[in-house]
């Protein structure tokens, strides 16, 4: 029990601390594929530190919502990190389940979108509308994968879902469909190509960034950090559920961190060779994942 506790707290803090590094890995990978040197993998830390020290201002028409939204984002992300089993197990009080994570992600979306409307600008409102419209596809996608995981393991709890692939050899195809579906869902959730382009700096095409245009200083540092943590958290959930575990909790933690690095590089590679979709084609993407979920359910059901 104590060991679980210690591993969990270690994993929690290290994963949070390394989040900017993982995002840096994505950036570096993309730059290298484009033939550039690219920024240092530690660039995220410099940027965060700098925003932390800069002046923070509020736009005239905004309200308290504007202040709270980034705080909700960062709190939610830390909370999700807390409920991910970094070793193999979770301490009893943290036996969180995926429905909870699902609603926490919705909470973050709710507040980000609200803050977009709060600044009374068109871009913020447009970004908010886009985020939530995508959410309509995203949430069934998450449940298509979650539901499948539940079905394969009979449990909604993170720590029980983890050794899934070892037990479920007969459902290998279902496992592939679930893992693939989740990979596609992650790309959507963390705002990467082919849905959102984190490198675009044009007001008209942005989604998540459009709601952040008025932020600076500490509040921007919060939401910037939250989006980094989101990348780590979503990738980690993927590995916890679909990746292998080792006999010792410490080794498992190390393995997860290694996997996070690898998957960051993978995200960078995928992003380099993908083209942003048309906005109204996103339903096809969504239905593909939901279709995968349904197919997997049908396979396992019969």
């Amino acid at each position: 029990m104590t060991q679980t506790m210690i591993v969990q707290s270690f994993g929690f803090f290290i994963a949070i601390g390394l989040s900017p590094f993982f995002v840096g890995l994505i950036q570096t990978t993309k730059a290298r594929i484009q033939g550039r040197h690219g920024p240092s993998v530690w660039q995220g830390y410099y940027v965060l530190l700098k925003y932390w020290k800069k002046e923070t201002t509020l736009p005239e028409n905004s309200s308290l919502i504007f202040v709270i939204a980034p705080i909700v984002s960062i709190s939610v992300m830390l909370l999700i990190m807390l409920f991910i089993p970094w070793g193999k197990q979770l301490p009893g009080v943290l036996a969180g389940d995926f429905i909870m994570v699902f609603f926490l992600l919705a909470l973050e979306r709710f507040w980000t979108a609200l803050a977009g409307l709060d600044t009374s600008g068109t871009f913020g409102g447009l970004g908010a509308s886009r985020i939530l419209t995508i959410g309509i596809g995203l949430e069934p996608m998450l449940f298509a994968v979650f539901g499948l995981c539940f079905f394969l393991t009979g449990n909604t709890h993170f720590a029980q879902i983890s050794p899934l692939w070892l037990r479920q050899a007969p459902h290998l195809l279902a496992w592939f469909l679930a893992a693939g579906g989740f990979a596609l869902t992650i790309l959507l959730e963390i705002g990467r190509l082919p849905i959102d382009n984190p490198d675009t700096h044009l007001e008209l095409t942005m989604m998540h960034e459009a709601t952040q245009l008025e932020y600076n200083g500490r509040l921007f540092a919060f939401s910037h950090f939250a989006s980094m943590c989101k990348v780590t958290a979503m990738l980690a959930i993927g590995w916890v559920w679909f990746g292998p575990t080792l006999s010792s909790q410490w080794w498992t933690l190390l393995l997860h961190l290694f996997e996070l690095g690898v998957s960051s590089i993978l995200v960078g590679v995928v992003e380099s060779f993908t083209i942003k979709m048309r906005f109204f084609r996103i339903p096809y993407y969504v239905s593909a994942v939901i279709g995968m979920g349904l197919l997997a359910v049908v396979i396992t059901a019969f």
Partner: protein
Amino acid sequence: MMVIAYLFLLGLPIALFARQPLRSKLSLLCYSLLLLGIALIALYHPSTMMVHGALFALNPLRAWFLLLLSIVAVAVSWYRFGYQDHDDKATAFWLPLFVMSMTGVLMANTVWVFITFWELMSITSFFLVIVHHDREHVLPSGYVYLVMSQISAMAIIGGLFLLVSQVHSADLSVIALKAHAMNPGMKNWVSALLFIGFSMKSGVIPFHIWLPRAHPIAPTPVSSLMSGGMIKLGVFGLIQFLLLDVGVQQVFWAVLFLLVGAVTALLGVLYALMEKDLKRLLAFSSIENIGILFLGLGLMAVGIVLHRPTLEVTGMIATLFHAFNHALFKSQLFMIAGAVQQHTGTLDAERLGGLLRTMPGMGIAFIGGSMAISGLPPFNGFLSEWLTFHGLLSLMEHFGAFWMIVSFAVILMLAMTGALACLCFVNASGVIFLGVPRASRSNHPIGKAMTLPVIGLLFVCLAIGIDPNWLLSPLFAVFPQKPTLAVSSFFPSSLMVMSIVLLLLLTFFLWLSRFWTMKKVPNWQCGRVVHEQRQMSFTAFTKSVRTSLAIIYRPHRHLERTGTQAAYFPEQLIYRGGVRSIWEKYLYRPTYRLVWRLSGLTSILQAGSIQLYLIYMLGTIGLFLLFVH
């Protein structure tokens, strides 16, 4: 003890004698508090309160509904102290009667009493809905409501009479014991009639057409009570009669509940998205939530059909809990809508904006209520939706391929509903309360009497969201025959841990942000100045949904260009757009025409006096009695 049970009849004298406004408001408040007291005692100390008279009786299930009803009634009657927009003598007369009749429905212990109060409830609510009969659209909508509620009442009366004729007793406690043993054919007839009747009253699709028409035109306290309380009585009737007493036997009923629930939830929220009138939006959102309640009922039905007590209890607790939560936040949201109307004189979201600055309490409460209704932690809506999801997931597990696919599909629809509700309420709260006003107007201040009950309800929502145990523990007494279940088996401690840690983290980061030192600077607008029409509009916010789900909405749009050189140099560009629903075209239109014709027929019979209506009512009941015997 019987005396306490009869206290609810106090509503009648209040209605008749308290014509003076302040006294009427005060007495209604006291009356509601009394009902709340009765409900609390009945729920938490059932042994001291178990009244089992010939005519009236209370059990934990009824006490639960009484509790939610009386909480809404307390908030509403408190709210009435500040509410001026619609208050007049008619409301003062009908409102206590309305509350009393709903209480009567819950406490009734014989079919006769139940039907009497049910009809009284329909009639009083009809008069409350048409309080503003001088306004446009009020009377036609009121008639739609009247006709629909009468059709529903006919079905219920028919079902109950059939039941009575089979069991040979009108006593509900006898029915509860004997109804199970009815012959299956008769059971199905009874079930069908009751299902149609009660679900019509709840407003599930496709019986929902009265709901978005009746709720918005009624004065706010009435729409709060109708949406928070009255439509839940349909759910109560289904649980009490159809599921607990009669008990469904075929898989068909369970699937029907799940199907109707999923379709209602999804379409309800989809239609809510398109409403820019706040009250109509809330009315459609009620339909959505009734859909979620029906999913719980469906789970319960599956549990009954397949003899799985755990599933049955899960479904029922999910339904009861969500009904309670929805009563809280929906009546709260309706009250805020009323305050918005009193404050600005309009409910048209396209003309509102920036209200958080002029009515901060209401604004915060609306955002909180929106979070609750979207099922977001740490509010109560999260827990009941969590439980519904859990129930559906457990249905997926051990019941074979058929149930697995059904529940998987329902889960996906529910997840989509949640996301749509989130979009809908971000849109409503963002467009109405945030940003800057979209049209110039003068604001009337809102009194504390309106703000406090709304904030109070929000706090109850938050308290339940953080720890539901204190509320839910007495519910398990509903199942004396079932294996004892504890709340902890439903809600893991991690949920509470999460809510608390979330609040702690929020406070910590709020402190860390040092927001009190931040200064305000002009908005960044690409180097130009602010222009109020550049804010996102309510209609535009949901445009992508309209486009993506064109198959459901059938949107149409037309851009008219005027002038002699219209092709390249139009003098004016005028946009007209909207949605054209296939339901509207192929189902509602004909139904509406039929209903309208029917209501045209009834108007021949109507002379408008109350006595005449009561005579009609008695005549109808008499006819039914003749028919059944």
